[in-house]
């Protein structure tokens, strides 16, 4: 798995895309800003839904809130993919060697799996969530918030580890 990542890193860093990401004076800072915007939308969107599902903001209808904010979170995630790819490609070899970055990738995979599973298992229960909030669903919503915050923390800490 690690060999695969470092092989890919070497290839992408040497590619025209990687060279552009590393040497352009605009690409990296703009990618950084877009990545931050994506993060704000992702955590700000799904984090509020998660808090609602674990029991906060009882006056807000969960299904309506989720319908409004889940697309914001998904749009944020979609912004983070290309912007993150640019920052990865610029410095791919040291990224691939970074234990913090490796853990971040694992956390993203777990967080995405958690989100997809939540929709599959509990997606239709949102309308009557408060009548009998499922413990499994509440746990997954709580885990979602913790996971995405952990992803964000790992991203920020790559430069310091």
């Amino acid at each position, binding site marked *: 798995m690690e060999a695969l990542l470092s092989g890919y890193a070497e290839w992408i860093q040497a590619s025209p895309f990687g060279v552009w*990401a*590393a*040497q*352009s*004076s*605009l*690409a*990296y*800072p703009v990618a950084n800003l877009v990545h931050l915007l994506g993060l704000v939308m992702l955590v700000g969107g799904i984090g509020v839904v998660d808090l609602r599902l674990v029991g906060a903001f009882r006056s807000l209808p969960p299904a309506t809130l989720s319908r409004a904010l889940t697309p914001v979170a998904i749009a944020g995630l979609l912004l983070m993919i290309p912007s993150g790819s640019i*920052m990865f490609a*610029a*410095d791919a070899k040291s990224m691939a060697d970074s*234990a*913090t970055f490796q*853990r971040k990738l694992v*956390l993203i995979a*777990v967080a995405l799996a958690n989100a997809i599973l939540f929709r599959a298992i509990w997606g239709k229960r949102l309308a009557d969530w408060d009548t009998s909030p499922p413990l*499994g669903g509440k*746990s997954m919503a*709580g*885990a979602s918030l*913790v*996971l995405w*915050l*952990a992803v964000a*923390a*790992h991203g920020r*800490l790559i*430069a*310091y*580890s």
Partner: protein
Amino acid sequence: MKRALILLAALAIPTAAAGHHGWSSYDTEQVLRLDARFTSVSWSNPHGHATMTYRGKQWHVVLAPVARMEARGLTPAMIAPGKRVQLVGYPRKDGTTEMRIERLTAEGKTVELR
């Protein structure tokens, strides 16, 4: 589920902060002032870097982000390998042969990198 949450919380705690980029990992008490020639230069993000020989050892030299170097009038040609540059910087505290450059003079022009 609770156990899983604890595991996730543990994962979120960063391991020993080695601090590659952290300011604290450089010894600002020990100012290096060097007349140098780089052996290689990487004009790249998230920050440029170069290599040079100093006191018989190969040193890794940390520069600044491309946008900042360009904004302050530095060009890759000015610090190309083999050209004379004057450096003011700090070495790593842990003894690694790496220095972070505060300011650099090339072709008679002094550029602040911080």
